[in-house]
């Protein structure tokens, strides 16, 4: 271990090499950007491997040449790799541990996360199906008058009560006075929703209730947060009609 100071420095790369290394790092970053440029590659599992490999390459080039581990005492490399490996292993263990929780946290999020509307509202020219699904579609006039007359629609209100108190979890957030256990306060009290619904917007009671299930944040009652999840896709068409009939009957 008698490598002197001057001797050590002579082993450092020359200016020309530094420039070449800088260009390589630039090119790798540009390639990374180009990989995710096509929309089909954005967030694709195909992109993950190349992106990780390219960034490992950049990481390695910087520590070896810019931080000159390649030319320095090997002990320094061991010290650094030690911390790096420990940090990586602990991180992977943490992620593995979390993923091992039978996926509960993810399912919880999937059932409850609400879309972020602000972004889609800003991008008015965004005509994706998703953005359109958030805009309440006014029902044709004839249908609405029919619906108003036959207020029960096609659903079965008794079956709808089972849907309401079932696994969708409606009762966790909404109070229904004649239904035991339905005492939630996060969302509005629905005890008279059949009457109230017709007064909230220009829509009829049934249309309003449907809108509230289809696009929960299209109309948010004052004093409540826009936190109701999209649950339409979690029920069958029959359950949906039953639920609407049940809610309309609550006068």
């Amino acid at each position: 271990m008698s490598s002197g100071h001057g001797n050590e420095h002579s082993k450092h790369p020359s200016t020309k090499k530094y420039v070449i290394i800088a260009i390589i790092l630039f090119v790798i970053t540009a390639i990374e950007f180009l990989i995710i440029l096509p929309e089909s590659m954005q967030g694709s599992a195909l992109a993950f491997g190349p992106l990780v490999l390219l960034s490992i390459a950049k990481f390695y080039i910087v520590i070896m040449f810019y931080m000159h581990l390649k030319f320095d005492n090997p002990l320094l490399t061991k010290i650094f790799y030690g911390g790096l490996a420990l940090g990586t292993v602990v991180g992977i263990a943490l992620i593995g541990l979390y993923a091992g929780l039978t996926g509960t946290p993810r399912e919880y999020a999937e059932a409850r996360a609400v879309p972020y509307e602000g972004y889609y509202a800003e991008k008015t020219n965004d005509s994706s199906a998703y953005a359109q699904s958030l805009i309440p579609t006014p029902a044709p006039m004839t249908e609405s008058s029919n619906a108003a007359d036959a207020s029960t629609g096609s659903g079965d209100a008794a079956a709808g009560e089972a849907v309401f108190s079932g696994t969708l979890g409606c009762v966790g957030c909404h109070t229904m006075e004649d239904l035991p256990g339905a005492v939630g306060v996060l969302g509005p009290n629905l005890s008279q929703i059949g009457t109230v619904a017709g007064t909230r917007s220009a829509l009829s009671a049934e249309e309003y209730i449907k809108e509230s299930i289809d696009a929960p944040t299209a109309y948010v009652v004052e004093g409540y947060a826009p936190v109701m999840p999209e649950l339409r896709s979690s029920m069958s068409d029959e359950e949906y009609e039953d639920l609407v009939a049940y809610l309309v009957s609550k006068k």
Partner: protein
Amino acid sequence: MAQITEAAHHEEEQNCTGIDNRKLLFWVFLSTDCLFFGALISTYMVYRGQSLVGPYPIDILDIPLTTISTFVLLCSSFAMVMALSATQKDDLKGIRIWLAATAVMGMVFIGFQIFEFWEFAHHGLLISTNLFGSTFFTLTGFHGAHVSLGIVWLWVLFILSFRGKVNSARVLDVEICGLYWHFVDIVWIVIFTLLYLVGGFDAGPVITG
């Protein structure tokens, strides 16, 4: 001349490993800093896709803009090695130019980050908004704090160069500052890949990649 050789003698306070004490200590610090950022990055990855309300990454991350700031940070790492190279050659003008260039590029990077944080706040993403906001701001904020400390360090060296305290006899001062700067750069390489290129298209609970 006698002064310089004395200084050089002080530079080489070695231990049984044959490595200068300061340099050894600094590499141990960088090794532990890997654990620090490792914890923050894993926390981000664990909570990926579990925010219950927006904005989600795809709603607000500006990847082309961040690619530009990544280029700037890479450039600054090049300027840093040039500053070290100039120090070894006792090229005082080169030392000042490259140190200042490194610091200015670091400041541009921080400028991009301030702009990004500002934009996010205007889109409704604060550290308390959702899990994405909490983990994103904690991780990138601590990285920004590291860069800011590095900028202060670089300007201190820049000022010291006018007092004749940056030269080949004290090359280790610049070298250690450089190690710190490059470390901050490699941490960004990881953050940029995982948060922007891989996780930047996460929409709501649907995670991608």
